């Protein structure tokens, strides 16, 4: 691991000051489960690290609000996953957390850090000699000619097809979450769907935060569709693995049992958290049947652009969305 200047801070003001002083290449350290791991691999080589894991103002979360749920960026994944109200009223959000990683990692990892978790693309993590435009801009993309089973069907570019691996952000994007950030210019908010960037020609730029900005919290507008929600995650093994495909679905039913509010996103198949409005439109106004759930799944994957080894995810993803729709429907209240 390369040496770095280490600064531990205890307040948000100190964090912003330290981050600005440390320069644009500095990194925030919270749970460490992504950053420290990649520093060991020398994929991340920050000259300076600002440790925010003891910043008390980041740590809380509140799921009791009538208008919105509030999740501090420093709250631990395990604590939030266990929250009783979240499990009952927003099961998809709880499931997206406890189906991620292991309990050890969930005890360490924070909600804010998890949003900016970096890709698991083996050519990115593998380092030299593999070409990777994300790791070394201009070097090429080894996945394009290599093994692309785990790579994106949506949002890829000539430069990069690495998948965004997170579950939490995939569920959040279905719920129209907002992100509050603090930087040297003050505080601002942005929709979570605008936090992550598609790779385009610059896959090294993965998010829209400015240098010196820190994620403070995520806010989720309260919705009755939370009760009728599910996060279904299909993995190569039953637990403790990244998604091969996942689906977040949240819906309400009207008095006739037809889908009213409808929110669907898919994970493990896109370069950023991926909402699928076409699937929502296909389902809205229909009763939930095997056929209508299947149609929603087909709509979700209609625009998929597979490579050589990942075309199987079109059928797998179609079925995953369909199963998540039926599970969410079974939980929904009319």
């Amino acid at each position, binding site marked *: 691991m390369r040496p*770095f*200047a280490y600064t531990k801070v205890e307040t948000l003001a100190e964090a912003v000051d330290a981050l600005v002083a440390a320069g644009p290449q500095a990194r925030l350290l919270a749970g*460490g489960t992504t950053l420290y791991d990649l520093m060991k691999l020398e994929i991340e080589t920050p000259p300076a690290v600002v440790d925010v894991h003891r910043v008390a103002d980041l740590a809380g979360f509140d799921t009791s609000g009538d208008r919105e749920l509030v999740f501090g960026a420093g709250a631990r994944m395990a604590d939030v996953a266990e929250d009783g109200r979240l499990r009952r009223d927003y099961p998809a959000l709880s499931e997206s957390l406890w189906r991620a990683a292991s309990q050890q990692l969930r005890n360490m990892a924070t909600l804010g850090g998890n949003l900016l978790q970096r890709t698991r693309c083996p050519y990115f993590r593998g380092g030299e000699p593999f070409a990777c435009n994300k790791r070394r801009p201009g070097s090429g993309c080894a996945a394009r000619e290599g093994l692309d089973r785990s790579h994106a069907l949506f949002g890829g570019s000539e430069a990069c097809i690495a998948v965004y691996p997170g579950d939490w952000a995939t569920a959040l994007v279905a719920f129209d979450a907002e992100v509050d950030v603090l930087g040297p210019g003050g505080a601002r908010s942005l929709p979570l769907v605008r936090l992550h960037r598609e790779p385009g020609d610059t896959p090294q730029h993965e998010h829209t935060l400015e240098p010196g900005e820190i994620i403070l919290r995520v806010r989720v507008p309260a919705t009755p569709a939370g009760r009728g929600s599910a996060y279904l995650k299909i993995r190569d093994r039953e637990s403790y693995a990244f998604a091969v495909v996942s689906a977040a679905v949240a819906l309400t039913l009207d008095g006739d049992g037809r889908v009213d509010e409808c929110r669907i996103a898919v994970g493990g198949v896109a370069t950023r958290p991926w909402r699928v409005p076409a699937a929502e439109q296909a389902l809205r106004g229909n009763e939930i049947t095997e056929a209508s759930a299947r149609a929603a799944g087909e709509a979700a994957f209609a625009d998929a652009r597979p490579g050589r080894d990942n075309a199987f995810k079109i059928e797998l993803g179609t079925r995953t969305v369909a199963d998540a729709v039926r599970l969410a429907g079974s939980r929904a209240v009319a």
Partner: protein
Amino acid sequence: MAATASTGVGSAHELDLSCTVNGEPVRVRVDTRESLLDLLRERLGVTGPKKGCDHGQCGACTVHLDGRRVVSCLTPAVQVSGADVTTIEGVAGPDGELHPLQQAFIDHDALQCGYCTPGQIMSGLACLAEGHAGDDDEVREYMSGNLCRCGAYAGIVAAVRAVAEQGR
């Protein structure tokens, strides 16, 4: 106050820290790059936690940090300042009598080579304390961060469940 490693401790890349390990106070100067696992094994002689993958994927290095299970390989040592660290060495009673979960691992043949066992037991203790040992499936889910290449999983589930049943 912000604490910068480059002020007051003589080196830009070292930091003094205090913590406890299995109840014993520890004061040590650490390299800011050092993991808790390396601190325990290489500097403090606490070799129960094992280095399997060193990337948070196998669970062999699991310890408790202020009562919560973590992987010590992905815990920067500088982050344990002021914390209580418990390893497998801190689990048995004062006279060396085995913890019921340690005994259950023996009784249920929950190990073969034993390399993953310290991490399995630290994770199993947490699994019990968290209330995640209600049935076999829940134990499998909440023990999934601990790999066993010998494949002693059936015995591990039985051992954790046996202690959960004793505690009811």
